[in-house]
């Protein structure tokens, strides 16, 4: 009797075992990678390759987009907006607060400022270029893969792919430039060339030419703060290189995401108004 019982229970166990192993293995998704995802998407985390994980929605808080140098408040261009349209005071983000313009270039900067906002590429919804895209009053998202790093900016759907492989040369000049990146320890270093010199640095008319060369350094200081330093070099505009330095903050809302700000429609009247059949006065 005992032998029968043992036999039967062994047989039953065997059937159960065999039937379980014969079911499609897809049903048993590997548990380990799911844990890996939880780990890498967590706070202060690293990517599986050991590099800092820069994934997330980031944004700068401050007035650099108004003026990268420190400044007092000022009235805005449209009195109809009252205090809403006024320019806030701000701490500068330029190391040493001085921008080493050549004399002729300084005159151009003043002209730019005098022709603000009409001449500001931002008003025309032109892509902001680097470094301005980093400190626009709009968030951007970093998608860091096991290869390249994508940065998608909410403003004007601007974006750029940072090539982390063998450096590529810019075939032509573009608004967002050609970005080649590599790691120096825990710092992401991005070398940006091929910028077309048509964007400004801010609403104060600071600018450069198509000889602009920007080297960015991204260093995650903590879970939610990343230090951004951009070295600006343009021998036709500046007498020597200079730096912009500012913190970037992780957007902490649950389900933070970048939204869509396709601003061309907001700029069409400004750009084309006088060529309409009934022209804008």
């Amino acid at each position: 009797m005992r032998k029968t019982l043992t036999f039967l229970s062994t047989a039953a166990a065997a059937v159960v075992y065999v039937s379980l192993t014969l079911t499609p293995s897809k049903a048993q998704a590997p548990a380990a990678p799911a844990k890996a995802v939880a780990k890498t998407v967590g706070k202060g985390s690293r990517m599986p390759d050991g590099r800092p994980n820069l994934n997330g929605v980031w944004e700068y808080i401050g007035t650099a987009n108004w003026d990268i140098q420190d400044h007092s408040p000022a009235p805005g261009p449209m009195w109809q907006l009252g205090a809403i349209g006024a320019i806030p005071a701000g701490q500068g983000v330029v190391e040493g607060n001085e921008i080493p313009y050549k004399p002729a270039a300084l005159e151009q900067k003043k002209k730019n400022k005098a022709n603000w906002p009409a001449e500001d590429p931002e008003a025309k919804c032109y892509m902001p270029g680097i470094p301005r895209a980093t400190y626009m009053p709009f968030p951007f998202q970093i998608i860091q893969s096991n290869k390249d790093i994508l940065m998608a900016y909410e403003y004007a759907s601007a974006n750029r792919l940072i090539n982390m492989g063998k450096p590529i040369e810019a075939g032509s000049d573009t608004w967002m430039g050609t970005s080649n990146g590599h790691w120096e320890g825990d710092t992401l270093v991005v070398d940006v060339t091929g910028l077309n010199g048509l964007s400004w640095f801010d609403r104060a008319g600071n600018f450069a030419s198509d000889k602009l060369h920007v080297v960015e350094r991204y260093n995650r200081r903590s879970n939610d703060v990343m230090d951004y330093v951009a070295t600006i070099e343009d021998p036709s505009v500046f007498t020597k290189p200079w730096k912009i330095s500012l913190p970037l903050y992780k957007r902490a809302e649950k389900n933070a995401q970048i939204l869509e700000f396709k601003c061309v429609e907001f700029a069409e009247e400004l750009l084309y108004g006088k060529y309409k059949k009934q022209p804008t006065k």
Partner: protein
Amino acid sequence: MRQRVLTSLMVLAAVLASVLLVTLPMIGQAPATKAKKSAYTPPKLPWGDPDLQGLWPGTDLIEVPLQRDAKAGERVEVTEEEFAQRQAKAERTAENDRVAYVAKDSKVGINPPGYWLEHGRPQKITSLVVDPPNGRIPELTDLAKQKAAQAKQAKQGHGPNETWEDQSLYDRCITRGVMGSILPVIYNNGTQIVQGPGYVAIRYEMIHETKIIPLDGRPHPSSNVKSYMGDARGHWEGNTLVIETTNFLGDKNGIGLNGGGTPHSADMVLTEKWTRTSPDMMEYTATINDPKTWVRPWTVRMPLRLNPEFPLYEYACHEGNYAMFNMLKGARADEKAAEEAAKAGKK
């Protein structure tokens, strides 16, 4: 003693039976499931997601029509003869380019020269639309027909290029919409997938779009938030990335080339599926479900080939849109000329 043994045996038998009832059907199914789908399993990224990354341009499909020729009926593939014709056409195009290169007396036209186009590779598929089975876009709803009639009516007595709104969203360099950004056109059909933990991002070359798809199951925003590219949410079904996009701005882009065609409504639900069927092939399908515009859902399917030689370049359209200025100025010049001709006529 015998009673207890008997009970235990019956319990054991019951357990056995129930296990077999559950597992036997699955054992039976496993081989059948395998036979249906491709056996290819893409490599996994370090965080466990299937790796779909790469450059997947739609360039090869340039000559494939969106809608199937009515003569082809429900045929998904062209006949051998039709395929031979497609191959011959491709060779003629290449030959034309060779000839045009040195031709001394090329005709002067008002459009850009032919060598500024990209070319496809002859394909076997009859059309990109695969459902309904006849490969043609379903009928419009009465509401959609009404809107189209109203739009046409509004254009009566309206001259060309009175304002920028007389141009398409594409020519205004605003957007081509989701489907308009992937349906193959004459050039710049660049599509790139970049993945991060918990996300998939899809870049479209024209007009520098980035679709970011969270995979964490978060809800869509409320209908207060609408956009041209909609709001995407993704999840994996096996190795297939399934993307559901809602929150579209309605009555703007259509589901045609470059976002043309009948504008879809704000209620459209777009379901896309990306499945890597081999190391260098991706099956892409998109099901358009918009009961306000089409009487039934319809599906587009595209086989996309991995092409590392097709990097995306910046397409900063708006920033270089001299054409918009020129079209408006051109229309004003025409109007002035017509006015002056009328005056001269009256004298």
